[in-house]
């Protein structure tokens, strides 16, 4: 069937709208990129838009030579990888029983879990709890207390509930137990949702900041976002002490721009990679296998 004129017009407008909107979303990052390659005076004087003014690699040389930043980068990669893996494992394990009708207490458990989304623990008791568990100054404090995200848990559970019942009926006849149903039948069918939820977890871990502020004192364990924030806080209060004479080809403004790019681009690159799991009919394809 050939597309009608109406459909063609729609297509044109759709492209136009999406491209223009996407351009606005790209611009802030391009601007930061341009800033990071500009001279400090030009950057502080707001002369830079999307192209560097008085081009210099000063800020980047500085950022890329900064051992502390690379270490934080490593920490962040570590908690992102380990955290996402653990979170996925435990979320799946928790979601599965909650999606089963024969799990008699699931309504109560579900209710209790959803409740924690609404009633948030005050910060001090939360802090004291984690501290009592001996996680102070340990990377586990950045992973374990956020192991299961209720939002993600609900997403997985909802998806499991939507899977055709015939699937596990036949599995049961084959003598599969719940572990096998989960790992050998459900998971292969859930690639798209698993990719989505992994992305949510990974981005969450990558952006870990609040918990790090609370629990990490040893700066060798600072994740990337903490380093990043040191450039984002207004330096005004420090202005009086913050004096130096030499002529440098970078300053806090350009360093900030370079650091934001450095800390953001790696995680941004994850999504395009995951997109292959979003192909239409992913579910059906695996059913047919």
């Amino acid at each position, binding site marked *: 069937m050939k597309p009608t004129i109406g459909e063609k017009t729609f297509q044109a407008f759709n492209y136009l709208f999406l491209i223009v909107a996407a351009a606005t979303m790209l611009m802030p990052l391009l601007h930061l990129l341009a800033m990071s390659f500009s001279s400090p005076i030009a950057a502080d004087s707001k002369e830079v838009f999307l192209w560097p003014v008085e081009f210099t690699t000063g800020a980047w040389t500085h950022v890329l030579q900064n051992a502390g930043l690379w270490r934080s980068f490593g920490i962040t990669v570590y908690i992102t990888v380990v955290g996402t893996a653990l979170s996925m494992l435990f979320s799946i394990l928790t979601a599965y029983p909650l999606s089963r009708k024969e*799990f*008699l207490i699931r309504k109560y*458990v579900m209710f209790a879990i959803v409740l924690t989304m609404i009633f948030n623990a005050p910060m001090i008791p939360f802090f004291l*709890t984690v501290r009592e568990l001996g996680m102070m100054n340990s990377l586990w404090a950045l992973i374990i207390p956020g192991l299961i995200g209720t939002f993600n848990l609900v997403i997985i559970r*909802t998806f499991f509930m939507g899977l055709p019942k015939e699937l596990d009926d036949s599995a049961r006849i084959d003598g599969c137990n719940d572990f096998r149903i989960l790992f050998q039948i459900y998971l292969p069918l859930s690639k*798209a949702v698993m990719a989505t939820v992994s992305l949510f977890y990974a981005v969450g871990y990558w952006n870990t900041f609040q918990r790090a502020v609370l629990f990490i004192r040893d700066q060798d364990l600072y994740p990337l976002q903490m380093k990043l924030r040191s450039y984002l806080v207004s330096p005004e209060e420090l202005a009086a002490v913050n004096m130096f004479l030499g002529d440098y080809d970078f300053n806090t403004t350009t360093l900030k721009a370079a650091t934001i790019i450095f800390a953001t681009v790696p995680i941004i690159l994850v999504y395009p990679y995951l997109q292959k799991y979003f192909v239409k009919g992913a579910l059906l394809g695996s059913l047919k296998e």
Partner: protein
Amino acid sequence: MAELSADRTSGSGTKETDRSERPAPRKPGNRYVENVRKHWMLYVMILPGILFYIIFKYIPLAGSVIAFQNFQIFNGIFGSPWVGLDNFKFIFTYDDFYNVLRNTALIALYQLVFGFPAPIILALLFNEVRLMLAKRTLQSLFYLPHFLSWVVVGGVVFELLSNQGFVNAIREWFGYGPILYMQESRFFRTIVVISAIWKEVGWGTIIYLAAISSIDPSQYEAAVVDGANKWKQVIYITLPALFPTILILFLLNIGNFLELGFDQMFNLLTPMTYSVGDIIETYVYRAGVLQGQYSVTTAIGVFQSVIGFTLLWIFNRLARKSEQGLW
């Protein structure tokens, strides 16, 4: 559907839950024991999850009792005096409380009405892009702003709406004088909603795209054979297929209705727009973080949660009438 309704009545303790696997009715008291024995694997699976929620959610949650104390950080929960409902009285008699509450509720409502459907619409638009490369590239660009902090985005918004900014340049081009949008209260909520949509819409789309990807393509093929145009396909196939996801996300949202996110407001608010933009979070920041009044802020939190819970309860009941609810 039938399964779900059977499940709902199981709470009464009189009916059997499992249709197929129970050979004979047992005494109601034994039901749980029997269930554990029969499906012990499920219980083993969920054990770590339950422990997690107890340790990291419920135990700290018990600390909410400081809402009924005059909590002194130095003396701790056990050393602080109890004050009953004083903190709640303090909140409800606070001069500006109703203004703050109104601002919060209004902005939350706008976010819900405009912000919630935005990613759904965007997902549908993406779905109409046929060039795979264009589609993926556009998606990837749309989710970029999610990674910028509100400090950065706030700066962009101020810049865009400044005297020399983009919007006023357009006005000038048409021969109009500049408007300082950020200091006029009538524009403030619109700016809040639009900037939030701009920042998060691409991110919010991901989950719908995942849901769309699991729609069986043969449904569309069949529809095309029946002569359904694109629009009809969206209405009769895509949207119904997305509906469970939409419903669940709506329920997850509604529970945190009054929580708007401090960072955005903090970075967009000026004293000129306090009257329309001072919300619960910004007040909590002034009173709690800066003044250390943890009891008051916890009391506010409890209040927010109670509202959120009530809303969720209502909508969850409604949801269960048509589809499944959260519990």
